[in-house]
């Protein structure tokens, strides 16, 4: 990692304060089947979403799911840099970034591998949703910034990006709804995990490594198509397909909130 020469060096002997934090016995589901915040296994957190916050951007949206806060700004369509080859379809450039203060551990300004991977996934997803044929020789830039990572940041990022594109009046085939599921063993599918449930690296109750992972699915609700599927961890085929189906139905239920936000935005005009 290249050294950051602009900041003062930390004292020689310095340790991460998290090493001293009390280790809690984190249990995902209590005995009566409720999670730590009182939700059931398949309950989604409330979502707040609003458009048009960033005045400098062509379009923007802010999405809050529980404590996760994500802001997306869209610039364009604008001229492509001259260096690129001439193309009759538009180009999309996405950046997915965690703010340094957003997670428990401070994130560097230079994009990490995880952020690069998420940027790439966002680019591929949005490429399938935006009508690129209507923007020859142009490029659209989309920046997603996670201000607070309270779990399901990628899902919130997808939804914020699609509303920001609608706010910028860029032609898209549909709006994107997304959902994340944490799989812990064959039985437990935790929908819309928060940051503790996401980062759970423990094995399932019986100590199994298989069927332990995170699945995020982005859905185009009216066209009934899946536009992104990302999974990490070790998941067997049937568990993965069950998790995907559950993700799709949960994502569909986000559609009404997003649609209401867009109609409010049009009415305000």
């Amino acid at each position, binding site marked *: 990692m290249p050294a950051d020469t602009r900041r003062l060096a930390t004292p020689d002997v310095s340790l991460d304060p998290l090493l001293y934090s009390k280790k809690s016995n984190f249990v995902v589901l209590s005995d009566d089947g409720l999670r730590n915040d009182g939700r059931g296994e398949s309950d989604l957190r409330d979502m707040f979403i609003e458009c048009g916050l960033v005045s400098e951007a062509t379009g923007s949206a802010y999405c809050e799911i529980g404590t996760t806060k994500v802001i997306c700004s869209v610039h364009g369509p604008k001229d492509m840099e001259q260096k690129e080859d001439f193309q009759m379809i538009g180009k999309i450039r996405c950046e997915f970034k965690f703010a340094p203060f957003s997670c428990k551990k401070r994130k560097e300004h230079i994009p990490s591998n995880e952020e690069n991977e998420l940027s790439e996934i966002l680019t591929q997803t949005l490429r399938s949703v935006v009508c690129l044929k209507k923007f020859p020789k142009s490029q659209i830039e989309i920046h997603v910034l996670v201000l607070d990572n309270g779990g399901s940041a990628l899902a919130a990022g997808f939804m914020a990006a699609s509303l920001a594109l609608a706010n910028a009046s860029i*032609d898209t085939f549909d709006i994107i709804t997304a959902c994340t599921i944490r799989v812990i063993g064959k039985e437990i599918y935790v929908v819309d995990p928060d940051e503790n449930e996401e980062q759970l690296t423990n094995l399932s109750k019986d100590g199994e490594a298989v069927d332990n992972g995170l699945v995020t699915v982005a859905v185009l609700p009216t066209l009934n198509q899946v536009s992104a599927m990302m999974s990490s961890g070790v998941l067997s085929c049937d568990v993965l397909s069950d998790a995907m189906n559950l993700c799709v139905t949960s994502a569909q239920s986000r559609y009404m909130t997003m649609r209401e936000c867009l109609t409010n935005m049009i009415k305000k005009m």
Partner: protein
Amino acid sequence: MLVTPGDVITEDTIYMKGHGTYGTNIEGDKRVIASVAGVVEPINKLICVKPLKTRYNGEVGDVIVGRIKDVQQKRWKVETNSRLDSVLHLSSVNLRGGELRRRSAADEFAMREYLKEGDLISAEIQQVHADGSLSLHTRSLRYGKLGQGCCVVVSPSLIKRRKNHMHNLSCGVSIILGNNGYVWISPLVKTATDSEAGDGGFDFDKEPVTADDRETICRVRNAILCLAKHSVMLYDTSVQYAYDKSLDYEAKHLLSDDVASEIVDRTLMEIDLLKGNA
């Protein structure tokens, strides 16, 4: 009818798909689906969706006001609120010393003396290319670099297409309603016959603008912003009426919402009266 991207507008086959809509090219699927968030505008059998923000789509012959963004070899790149930057070729401007002179290498090097980054110009669209980019020209003494005045940006959809976009309002200012949504307000310009022949429209009047003129310009600008806030079409009559109705208030008060709505209501009434009499 308000739609969001992905909403099915109709399944009837008689309708054609316009701006802001698309159809799945699947055999037997006749749905017309919206691709932007906005209001459905059916024009006879054509279904369009009018989005919140529109970029300017140029037509040949439109008058636009643009800002020079870049100086390149033998051309300038002009920012006109369209999807792609517009182009103003060196051969499309009037040079000092007669119009029909061949452009030499010296002209190329001296381009920045004529127009540099940040200058505002008024021009006409000469050509629209296949990808939607525009070629401009300033080959008339009416067009050229804009000097002292104020530029207001509104949505391109609010500018009414008329035969004439440059007006001298009776309140004492001259106004250029660019089709791309950029409106230029300046003190009264002398007519083209007064200016020196062959100056190419690059020199502008550097006389100091009087305080009264500045106030009028400011009032016209605020009146235009009031009209734009309430989505009223902008043309010389509507701007003139809005100015007249605003004389009851101070120019700076026009920026507040209640004063703006009052002025717009009275302007609309006056326009209706005019239509009723016509």
